């Protein structure tokens, strides 16, 4: 009995759309098996079939050699299959423990035995090195810890086949590193893992074998040791992909954004941006590197007028925009690609075309004397959809129905088209496949080359190193170092982000 999981010729159809077209996936016991594919290739669908959330329209599933019929997640649980979903399945208002025990609660006389549950969670977390605070509320903990809670959920149920659907998309480099260690530990315990990720580096680092799918079809299954990132990318996208985005040297011009001595408090009143100074010039991309929670969110919100700065000034082209209302700041020439595209970027129930006019709807030609000109709005939308390769049936389709990558492209199109002097991009490629990432990076560089200032905030060191002309390291609300990406290493950046002082390059602005 070689395979713990065999998904043979799995077919899944949504309406007229074939999401999984006779895909076969075989996972060996004790291996980490990567599942690779573009956005929308059908990876999550396949895994949801395995986990019992979807019923396949064809094919068969075998677990440890037995043919099984996984009608719902309960069956999957019983078969020892656990899944860490792409979008976290955690109840925000519950504690870590409550989330973990949900559905199989230990009881004592009809009451949940919370003490016992917490003890069990603690033991489990110690055993696998998954540090969590069992009594903390999900809403209060970091994304990395949330991820660990997800893993603990599966382990708590005794799963020995674990599915990780894009676990690293939302993690910081440190957290990714920790996760990799955890996965290695889990396989050592005899568990098998299916890992979905867009990051080829991760596949190369931890996986034993990889199955590539494209547009719902299985393309190949390879031994990781016998392949390389370029081959994988080509298999997955169907063409050659450039990882290192080509770019000319920057030609910085006059300062566009000048932040001086900025202090911002978060919603709880804690000072998270602490006397921060930073300048971004025309024609350069400044990347902000830092561990999540070091003031990035508040910095961006203050820059865009969503929260008030306590003190300090923000100048745009020499003009003071500190604490102006968002619209004034937008009109002054700031574009913003927000971190959470669903919450902040789009009105999901509006057509994608109208979403593209979300900031300009009140201006000519989209609006005349208070009346909207839908012709102009949709004309513009069509142009942007074509220009930014947004894949959508038409411009009248609700934004909700687009895939994440395409939603992101629409937002970028919208922001870039307004021709802002400063473009703030926060995690612009989160969760996107290599093809889409390439596209977006090109666009950012294009902006720079047109003489715009770009401020990039990302937890992906790769991205920051690749795209930025200068990297500003943020730590505890301050810019602690400015480094040149060509002259630094990931290790050095990692140390700076962790707060260790750099000797040569002192704090500059």
């Amino acid at each position, binding site marked *: 009995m070689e395979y713990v999981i065999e998904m043979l010729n799995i077919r899944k159809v949504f309406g007229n759309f074939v999401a999984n077209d006779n895909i076969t996936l075989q996972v060996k016991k004790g291996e980490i098996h990567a599942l690779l594919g573009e956005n929308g290739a059908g990876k999550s669908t396949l895994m949801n079939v395995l986990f019992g959330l979807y019923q396949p329209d064809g094919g068969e599933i075998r677990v440890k050699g037995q043919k099984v019929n996984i009608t719902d997640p309960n069956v999957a649980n019983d078969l020892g299959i656990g899944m860490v979903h792409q979008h976290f399945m955690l109840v925000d208002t519950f504690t870590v423990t409550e989330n973990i025990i949900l559905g199989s609660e230990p009881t004592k006389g009809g009451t949940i035995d919370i003490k016992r549950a917490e003890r069990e969670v603690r033991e489990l977390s110690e055993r696998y090195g998954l540090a969590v605070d069992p009594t903390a509320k999900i809403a209060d903990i970091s994304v990395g810890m949330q991820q660990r809670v997800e893993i603990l959920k599966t382990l708590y149920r005794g799963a020995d086949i674990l599915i990780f659907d894009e676990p690293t998309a939302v993690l910081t480099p440190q957290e990714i590193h920790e996760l990799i260690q955890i996965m290695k530990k889990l396989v050592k315990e005899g568990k098998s893992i299916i890992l979905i990720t867009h990051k080829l580096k991760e596949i190369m680092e931890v996986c034993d074998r990889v199955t590539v799918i494209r547009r719902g079809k299985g393309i190949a299954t390879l031994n990781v040791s016998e392949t390389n990132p370029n081959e994988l990318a080509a298999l997955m996208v169907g063409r050659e992909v450039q990882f290192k985005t080509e770019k000319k040297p920057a030609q910085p011009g006059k300062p566009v954004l000048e932040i001086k001595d900025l202090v911002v408090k978060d919603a709880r009143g804690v000072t998270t941006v602490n006397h921060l100074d930073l300048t971004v010039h025309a024609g350069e991309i400044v990347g902000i590197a830092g561990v999540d929670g070091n003031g990035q969110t508040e910095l961006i919100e203050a820059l865009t007028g969503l929260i008030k700065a306590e003190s300090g000034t923000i100048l745009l082209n020499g003009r003071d925009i500190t604490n102006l209302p968002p619209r004034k700041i937008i*009109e002054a020439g700031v574009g913003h690609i927000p971190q959470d595209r669903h919450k902040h970027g789009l009105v999901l129930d509006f057509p994608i075309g109208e979403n593209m006019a979300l900031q300009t709807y009140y201006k000519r030609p989209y609006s005349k004397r208070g*009346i909207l000109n839908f012709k102009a709005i949709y004309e513009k939308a069509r142009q942007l959809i074509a220009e930014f390769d947004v894949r959508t049936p038409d411009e009248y389709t609700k934004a909700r129905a687009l895939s994440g990558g395409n939603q992101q492209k629409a937002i970028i199109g919208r922001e870039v088209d307004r021709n802002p002097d400063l473009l703030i991009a926060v995690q612009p490629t989160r969760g996107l496949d290599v093809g889409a990432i390439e596209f977006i990076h090109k666009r950012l560089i294009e902006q720079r080359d047109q003489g715009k200032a770009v401020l990039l905030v990302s937890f992906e060191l790769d991205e920051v190193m690749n795209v930025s002309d200068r990297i500003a390291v943020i730590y505890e609300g301050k810019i602690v170092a400015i480094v040149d990406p060509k002259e630094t290493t990931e290790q050095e950046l990692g140390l700076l982000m962790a707060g260790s002082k750099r000797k040569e390059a002192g704090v500059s602005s």
Partner: protein
Amino acid sequence: MNLNRLNQFFVPVLAVLLGMIVGSIVMIVSGYNPIAGYSALIYGAFGDPYYIGETIRQTTPYILSGLAVAFAFRTGLFNIGVEGQLIVGWLVAVWVGVSFDLPKVIHLPLAILAAALAGALWALIPGILKAYLKVHEVIITIMMNYIALHVTNAIIRSVLSDEGFKSQPIHESASLRSDFLDAITYHSTMHYGIIIAVIGAVIMWFLLEKTTKGFELRAVGFNQHASQYAGMNVRTNIVLAMVISGAFAGVAGAMEGLGTFGNISTKAGFTGIGFDGIAVALIGGNNAFGILLSALLFGALKVGALEMPSSAGVPTELVDIIIALIIFFVASSYIIRLLLSRLQKGAE
């Protein structure tokens, strides 16, 4: 696409039919003759010009209260306070109608605008509390209904009449009634308010679908965060949405004050028009055109029902049952759609 459009029209029609069918089952089970019942209902609603006039009169405030509820819904708010806003609108319309002596071209519009303003002001309070303190608008509007009722009664008693129970009749110059309508509908209480109600529907459609402000209001209704990111002022938009909704409700009150009744009496309880407006809005899909139809349906059912006890011996309550069934079927349109698509597939 085309099929979808067709379904959009068919589903409510089917819901109404299904409601009627189940209603007739209820009648049969309880020993009434459904044919006689429905004949009476239809006769009582459209049987001759008089009944048509009454149906239209009843439809008029329903359109406006439906618009009020729908406007709030479309902008992300649940306005249960239409009833209260309607009552204050009624009061103020009558107050203007009684206290001024002006040419009709000024007096009538003034009275209607005053009612709109009163409804708007009444809605301003929950609007502000929602926007600035995040207090749930449902509770506040429920409370504001009761306050409206009691305050209005007190004002009628002490200001609009001398310690009596009703106001003076409004001056002719503020009235929506006309001899012409009276003559062609055999003395029904129909009045020109229907024109205002239809204009109201057009305004709502235009405001929401065509104007810049409407775009903002809808955006804020769907996603406050994204709207704020896009530079919209979320708070003012919430307040504005509530206020516009209240203005529609106020005008609905003016229809009663300037049209149907021509005065205002102290009220022993709510008029029900505001609450029925919730159903009207929902059956009409929160869309201006749909509301015109659903208000007509409502008006016809309510007025036609009055004919059922005397002509067919069927209690009027049966109509409430039918209305409820229709609402259920409209609400469950997902199932109807599913059935329709099965049928269409089968036919292919």
